[in-house]
């Protein structure tokens, strides 16, 4: 039993976490412990001899816990250790009979507790010899306490203490040397230690080169038309990565010759080159030549900041060595050629070849490759556009280095040095700019800043043939207006596919370079009579027929809260009495339309217009039925698409988006929903066909096929519109001035806008386009 008791401690703590802390600490130092949540169980362990010492942890501000200690002290004073929260109560505990040396107050102190436990067991090991004085005994206990503290701290430290032992041995060894030698050795060690520390610090803060496995440089996003014609590139860094096997050998050799001739011999660092550069610097009396290999340059470009410090240089070398161990020479060269900056916002060889020569990198000639190899050192200084003479000298130097390194014959060298430098910067394509802007705005809302760096391939809905036709039609229309003495006007056109809502053509103005405001998608203008079909559609849905009779009579409507009156007049100034619904729309009779609107109700008309696709606010006043509320041409065209098909047409500018991992991340694939009954669609189509055959749209008869549409002209001829459709496309045309001043006398929708519409529809290829799957009408 004595053996079991030895170094066995029973613990009771009123708060379990504190008990666990004491128990774990003692156990860590080799003490056998049991933790009880019942004080009686802990006492029984002492009484039964299972434990020699009882450790009790209490909050001595709580009376019941103090009473608990008092009870224990009565029977177990000799084997009781109390840890308590308030050190001021030590006297109180002593009065209860607890040994003062076994009261540990204040914050829980595992180390002090262990020292006290160890001291208890030291006493328990047996009394000191009788002849020893009290002073010696105190000293012995103090030494034991110190040892206990050290033992506790050692136990709590991380398990590996080999370094400490080695250091201790070293120090002991040094102590045996003579003082002078010791100082010299110590100095050397300190210096070496400092150097080693510095190197260690440099190397310990190296970036993770595994990032290169997932390395993804900023890459331009490309927008294509529906027929795969490149429309535009959106980028922060103009870059198109290209694999090494698509870079001609002579181009690679040009870079190796000028940047790192021993590239295939070294392991990331070239000591010979460094020594040569150092010698050149010494001779020049300053920093003239760098000794960086291609691998070091890549390390700097990808992993480090472009600062000129010793630390950066050490890191650059270390990373270069690591890269060479991890990656092949070809892979490193490929990364370098795709990463380097060549000026003119061109990053990587492919972008540089396109910017300087307007061709892909696999078609670069020897002289062209040499010029590009000349650029990364100082793209602006050696730019053929800014400093042609310096660029030529640098290029010839590259060619000379190629010859020296055996990459060129004398003939090839002579021939290449005679080649001309490029003189024209090849900008990237920016076709159909208004449409590209429209797509970009949409894409930016979705992808934010990533758009210009994510390397997306965006297939738009634009049909390049129809876009060309639209631009030509606008040009022709403008020329006709100028011939009539009308100058300074703007025009816009938008064409949507009826089956999908795809925007097939969009012209937002007559000259993008002068003004980028998109009048097809952004301009809010009054549609005039082009709004009327929505009034008639609402009427058809309320039971009117195309041959129902309505009144084309003067009507007076109070406006402005009754302070004014409004009397709509017809364009001719005459009123026609009773007319059919169809006749009223065909002849665009204002009075008849307002009279009809009074019957149908403004709320239903506005609701119908919104239902078919008008998104802009329509003011709940009667002038709105004659087109006084402003809308965009794009929403008007989309709403006419609903009149044509009975389905809600949402303008769509994107067909699909593919990310740089070739995954399709946008593929809408939704179909327009049917929103109008077929009878209403048939009625409105009949009336819009009559507008062309017998009304204000007669100019469209020149197409010699069935088309539908409606003219629109606003007060003072400030806006002229024609919106119409055939069985595949709905097309809107607007002509007007940005200042909202009149276009010119008699320049109505029929005269200014309709010819452009007709010209565009004339150019639309009848074959080769998908035929809309229309509804029953």
């Amino acid at each position, binding site marked *: 039993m004595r053996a079991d008791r030895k170094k066995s401690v029973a613990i009771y703590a009123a*708060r379990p*976490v*504190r008990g*666990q*802390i004491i128990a*774990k*600490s003692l156990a*860590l130092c080799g003490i056998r412990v049991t933790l009880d949540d019942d004080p009686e169980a802990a006492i029984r362990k002492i009484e039964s001899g299972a434990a020699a010492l009882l450790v009790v942890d209490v*909050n001595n501000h709580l009376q019941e816990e103090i009473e608990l200690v008092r009870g224990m002290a009565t029977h177990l004073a000799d084997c009781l250790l109390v840890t308590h*929260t308030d050190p001021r109560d030590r006297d109180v505990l002593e009065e209860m009979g607890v040994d003062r040396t076994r009261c540990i107050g*204040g*914050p*829980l*102190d*595992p*180390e*002090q507790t262990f020292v006290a436990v160890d001291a208890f067991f030291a006493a328990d090991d047996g009394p000191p010899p009788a002849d020893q004085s009290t002073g010696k005994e105190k000293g012995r206990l103090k030494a034991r306490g110190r040892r206990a503290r050290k033992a506790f*701290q050692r136990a*709590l*430290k*991380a*398990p590996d203490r080999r370094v400490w032992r080695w250091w201790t041995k070293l120090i002991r060894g040094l102590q045996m040397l003579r003082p002078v030698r010791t100082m010299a050795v110590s100095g050397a060690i300190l210096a070496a230690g400092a150097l080693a520390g510095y190197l260690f610090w440099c190397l310990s803060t190296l970036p993770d080169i595994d990032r290169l496995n997932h390395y993804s440089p900023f890459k331009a996003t490309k927008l294509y038309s529906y027929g795969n014609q490149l429309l535009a590139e959106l980028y922060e860094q103009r870059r198109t990565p290209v694999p090494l096997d698509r870079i001609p050998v002579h181009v690679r050799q040009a870079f190796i010759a000028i940047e790192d001739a021993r590239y295939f011999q070294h392991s990331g660092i070239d000591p010979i080159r460094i020594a040569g550069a150092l010698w050149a610097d010494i001779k020049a009396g300053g920093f003239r030549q760098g000794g960086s290999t291609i691998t070091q340059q890549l390390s700097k470009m990808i992993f480090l900041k472009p600062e000129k410090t010793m630390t950066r240089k050490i890191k650059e070398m270390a990373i270069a060595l690591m890269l060479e161990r991890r990656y092949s020479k070809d892979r490193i060269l490929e990364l370098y050629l795709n990463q380097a900056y060549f000026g003119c916002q061109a990053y990587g060889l492919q972008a540089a070849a396109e910017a300087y020569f307007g061709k892909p990198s696999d078609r670069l000639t020897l002289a062209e490759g040499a010029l590009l190899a000349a650029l990364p050192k100082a793209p602006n200084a050696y730019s053929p556009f800014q400093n042609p003479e310096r660029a030529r000298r640098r290029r010839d130097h590259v060619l000379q280095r190629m010859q020296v390194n055996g990459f060129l014959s004398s003939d090839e060298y002579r021939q290449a040095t005679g080649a001309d430098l490029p003189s024209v910067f090849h900008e990237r394509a920016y076709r159909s700019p208004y449409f590209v802007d429209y797509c970009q705005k949409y894409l930016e*809302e*979705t*992808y*934010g*800043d*990533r758009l210009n760096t994510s390397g997306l391939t965006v297939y738009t809905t634009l049909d390049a043939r129809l876009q060309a036709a639209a631009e030509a039609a606008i040009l022709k229309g403008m020329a006709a207006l100028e011939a009539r003495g009308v100058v300074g006007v703007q025009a816009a056109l938008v064409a949507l596919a009826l089956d999908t809502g795809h925007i097939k053509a969009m012209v937002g103005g007559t000259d993008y370079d002068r003004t980028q405001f998109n009048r097809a998608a952004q301009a809010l203008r009054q549609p005039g009579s082009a709004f009327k079909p929505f009034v008639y559609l609402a009427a058809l849905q309320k039971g009117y027929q195309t041959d129902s009779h309505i009144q084309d009579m003067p009507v007076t409507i109070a406006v402005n809260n009754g302070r004014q009156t409004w009397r709509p007049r017809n364009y001719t100034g005459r009123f026609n009495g009773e007319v059919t619904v169809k006749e009223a729309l065909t002849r665009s009779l204002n009075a008849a339309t307002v009279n009809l609107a009074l019957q149908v109700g403004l709320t239903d008309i506005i609701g119908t217009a919104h239902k078919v696709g008008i998104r802009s606010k329509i003011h709940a006043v009667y002038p709105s039925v004659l087109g006084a509320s402003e809308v965009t041409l794009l929403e008007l065209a989309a709403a006419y698409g609903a009149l044509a098909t009975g389905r809600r047409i949402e303008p769509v500018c994107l067909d699909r988006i593919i990310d740089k991992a070739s995954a399709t*991340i*946008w*593929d809408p*694939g*939704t*179909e327009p929903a049917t929103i109008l009954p077929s009878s209403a669609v048939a009625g409105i189509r009949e009336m819009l066909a009559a507008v062309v055959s017998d009304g204000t749209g007669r100019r469209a008869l020149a197409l010699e096929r069935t088309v539908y549409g409606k003219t629109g002209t606003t007060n003072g001829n400030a806006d002229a519109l024609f919106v119409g459709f055939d069985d595949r496309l709905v097309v809107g045309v607007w002509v007007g001035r940005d200042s909202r001043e009149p276009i010119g006398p008699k320049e109505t929708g029929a005269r200014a806008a309709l010819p452009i519409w007709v010209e565009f529809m004339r150019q639309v290829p009848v074959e080769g386009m998908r035929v809309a799957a229309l509804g029953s009408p």
Partner: protein
Amino acid sequence: MAPGSMTTRRKTARSSGGGGPSIGLDIGTANIVAYRNGQSEKGTQMEANAFFTVPSMPNTRKILEDKAVRFFEKDERLHILGNAAEEFANILGGTTRRPMEDGLVNLKEDDGIQVIQAILDPMVPEPAQKGQPLWFSVPGDPLDRNGAVLFNESIFKTYLKGRGYTPRPINEAMAVVVSELSDQHATGIGISMGGGMCNICFSYLSIPAVTYSIQKGGDFIDQTVGRSVGEPATKIKAIKEQELDLSVAPRNNIEHGLHAAYDDLFASLAESLARVLRGSDNVPRLNQALPIVLSGGTVLPPGSRERFAACLGEVDLPVRVAKVVQARNPLYATAKGAYMMAVAEDES
């Protein structure tokens, strides 16, 4: 088995007993991580704890099925789950919804519990042997809201029991200590900064002596900055995760806002740490300085560690701090700690 009985030996081996491979589960506001297979982290899954609702249309359903996107249908709406939800929200310009908020199950979301379970189902396959222990993370009680996490814990316990496991909760920050400080007797301070809250655990010899949480995290940063610059929180989150570097000067208004919000969060955290540790009887007097480990998605931006260390310098802690380190994989640290507990239990 309580966290206190965790041995200090590094245990990351694949479990062979107990009926199947061990899993450690971290159920956070922003992400759910199921950790498997030890150090290689192969097979570890992380899914956004989010969903995105679209109207149920045959065409939409077909697209989701074709793309193998996980969703379920309820009340004529399709609930797209996990990472796919964020992808769809980004494409369609919407915002995902969260079944958890401020670290706890979001009771304002009617379908929240169902969504979490649907996300968890494929991550937590039924065990080969019924009753296999599964350790999962639970948050600490928010300051001044004792007992707030009990409901949360019981929901997941019930779910995991239903899947055939014996659920074992572990404090989220304690799991970080287990994962990152096991070679230091699991002694130190673990801090898990997630989307909804920051969890803090002072651990001494693997005993979670003090645990608590503050209900501020990554979402707080996104929303605060979003409100102040007038941008949606999702955009702020994307910028924070992809571009933010707290070690360099901010380049625009959004980055200014993010720097300020991070400083505010770190200052709150440091101040609470000092206050809670000072007020606790469970913090022992220690001669040794302790490490602090930071984990969670919110500490991913470079410079977070240094910024937090600077804030710590402004407060008076009752323990000395040896160093502030970032977890080896901040996104997986909690789940890895839970996994290590599972392996330790399995081996004991």
